């Protein structure tokens, strides 16, 4: 347990340092600092994988139950998504300014949450658990990436003096950022749909009903509908630019609230994955 916590703090330190480096690198147009921030972020993945691996080996299940584990998994997927994208396309380094604060907030929250050991209960003992949770994490990572890109787009678009345009000059063109944002939303939309479908099939096998308008189910549909609206605006109504970027930014807190907030605020049969009781 102690080893896990130590490595979690190391991970959080890496991510906080990386976030500060992204801020400094972008504001003071220090390209080298921004590039190194990506490497610091990537380095943070090592202790995070260790802490997840140690806990997995000790408890016999992946990071599925309790806020501590859920936030850890969401952060891991988000950071992996960002690091892979940034290493493949170095021009995306500066998007870390939008993405890493989300990762730090999630990790920070996890550090103050209960780290109690929750066993796999009868209701959770299914291979659907892995599928359902994996797609939830992946879709969140894709939406977080779209959020980071949308922030970059808006900041650059609203820079009247051109200062921020200069700070983000290494980034791809606004058109390319707009396109990338939409691509990440598309990816997240598909992954979220798989999460919903796998959850519906699992619910039917576990509880005897594929949909019961439970708050988590309702809000996961709400999130999917919000991104469906984004896609209709983007691809059918040909919206582009800042107003669509604002839409992607506004959608992210709803997604986060669906995954973290709903089981905390509302009474739900899904509450177990945050509270750590039978779900």
């Amino acid at each position, binding site marked *: 347990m102690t080893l896990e916590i130590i490595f979690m703090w190391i991970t959080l330190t890496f991510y906080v340092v990386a976030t500060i480096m992204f801020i400094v690198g972008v504001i003071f147009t220090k390209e080298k600092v921004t590039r190194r921030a990506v490497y610091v972020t990537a380095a943070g993945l090592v202790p995070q994988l260790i802490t997840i691996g140690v806990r997995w080996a000790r408890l016999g299940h992946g990071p599925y139950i309790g806020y501590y584990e859920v936030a850890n998994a969401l952060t891991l997927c988000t950071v992996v998504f960002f690091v892979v994208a940034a290493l493949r396309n170095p021009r995306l380094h500066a998007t870390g300014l939008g993405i890493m604060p989300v990762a730090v907030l999630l990790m920070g929250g996890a550090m103050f949450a209960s780290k109690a050991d929750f066993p796999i209960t009868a209701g959770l003992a299914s291979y659907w658990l892995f599928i359902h949770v994996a797609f939830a994490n992946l879709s969140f990572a894709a939406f977080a990436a779209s959020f980071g890109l949308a922030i970059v787009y808006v900041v650059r678009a609203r820079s009247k003096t051109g200062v921020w345009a200069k700070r983000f000059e290494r980034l791809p063109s606004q058109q390319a950022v707009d396109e990338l944002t939409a691509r990440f939303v598309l990816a997240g939309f598909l992954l979220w749909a798989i999460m919903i479908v796998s959850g519906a099939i699992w619910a039917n096998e576990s509880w*005897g009903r594929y949909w019961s308008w439970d708050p988590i189910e309702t809000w996961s*549909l709400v999130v999917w*509908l919000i991104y469906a609206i984004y896609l209709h605006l983007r691809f*059918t*109504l040909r919206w582009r630019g800042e107003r669509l970027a604002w839409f992607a930014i506004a959608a992210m807190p709803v997604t986060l609230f669906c995954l973290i907030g709903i089981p905390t605020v509302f009474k739900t049969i899904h509450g177990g994955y945050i509270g750590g009781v039978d779900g």
Partner: protein
Amino acid sequence: MIRTALRKILDTLASAWLAVGTLAFVGLWGIVATAVPQGAPNSLPVTTWAKANPVIEPVANALGLHQAFTAWLFLACVTLLGVSTVVCSWRRTKVAYLRARALRAAARESADSLAAERDLAIVLAPDVAPAEALHAAREALAELGVRTKVGEGVLRAVSPWWSVWGSAVFHWALVALMLSVLIGNLQRSDGLMGVSVGQTKPDAAASYGVLTAGPLHSWNGVHRSFRVDSLDPDLILGGVDRGAVPTVSVLDAAGTVLKTQLVYPNMMLHVGALSINCPAVGLSADIAVESTARVELGRSYEPIDFSQTATDGTVPAGLLGIFDQSGAVQMRIGVTVPLDKRGGRFGEWIPAVPRAHIVVYALDGSTLVDTVIKTGEAAQLPGGGSLRLLGIGWYARLSIVDDWTTPFIYAAMIIALLGLSISLLARQQIVLAAVVDGPHGATLALRMRLWRNVRTTRAEIEAALAAALSGGSAVPASDDKEIDS
């Protein structure tokens, strides 16, 4: 006139703004519905909320927000969304059909026909030999992420025919999903049935404690029954505590067992359209009703639920009615089992000394008899006769769903995901190029249809090819056209 009106209606239904509006409404409705307690108007959460929010309550009530997902406003909006999706799917199908036809034609296109129907012509620079032009064009396109094949003098990057069907398939699958859910709700039955260990109950409306059946559900021809063979109060399987687990059998009309298995979370019993789950277990009192002469008149398994807040630690799942010869109810009987306490909590298992707490109520609710009896003992009923406790056992509360649409719902969801994946990932493009003789000399004739998920743009391709082959500009063809790009 009618045709024009019809077209206007169809255009409205197919409009993206209508889709956006209905999607937004359903989303907002869902958000509001989670903030307002759901249930019948007289249920405790609803009445408590109504008292706490006297200003909003009339509005919530008028809109049907307490049963938000069956409210007329919600259903009307979902219906509108469904109709809009049908019209939209039809239009997407027409586009996909035209594109698929264009893709098939492009796969067979020859250099001659391309010369006759080109979008663009790039005059080759004098130093570019016609034989090298295709190779140079191929490299230029590859740099833009367009991978091509060369065959019969034509450079091709033609997507497979199925690549254009993703969006149409996705939308049709959503329509199929909505229809399946609608049909499912009309014909399904979903109920809770308490069955004691050793007891067999027929699959009939009267056997259920709680039952929701769609208007099209029929009990005709349903001649099966359910039996709980045994119950393990604490089954550990695969290293996981599965809780109290019954073994359930489904029998046909002749009493032949169709299927038997342990039923626990993630291990439902499926027989055809039937799914059986066990959300809870409780105790069961085996009671015999006897005449004054101690002749057994009837027997009943009385289901009893655990409750940590009840005096005995249990509450009756229902009341047993005692009828007179005309069939009128004379009195009602509630049976509970006093549980053993351990560590300040009631132990949710059969107590060391099994006893039944019998309370007989008159029709006006007053208590006529209140007594505790052990196994083998009898409680005297007012007006003669008695209730004898034969034993205390377990009962399983079975959740039984009869719905043949579930596999169709699964299929629609999976097809929707496939369609969505194709729509999001598959490139939809036609890029054809061939060297032909034109009025300006040797030229590269080009045809392009860049529909979706393409890494480049028309302008980038034109510029790259012009730079690679002519060092000059491209000449647009007079018959330049696009199919719904």
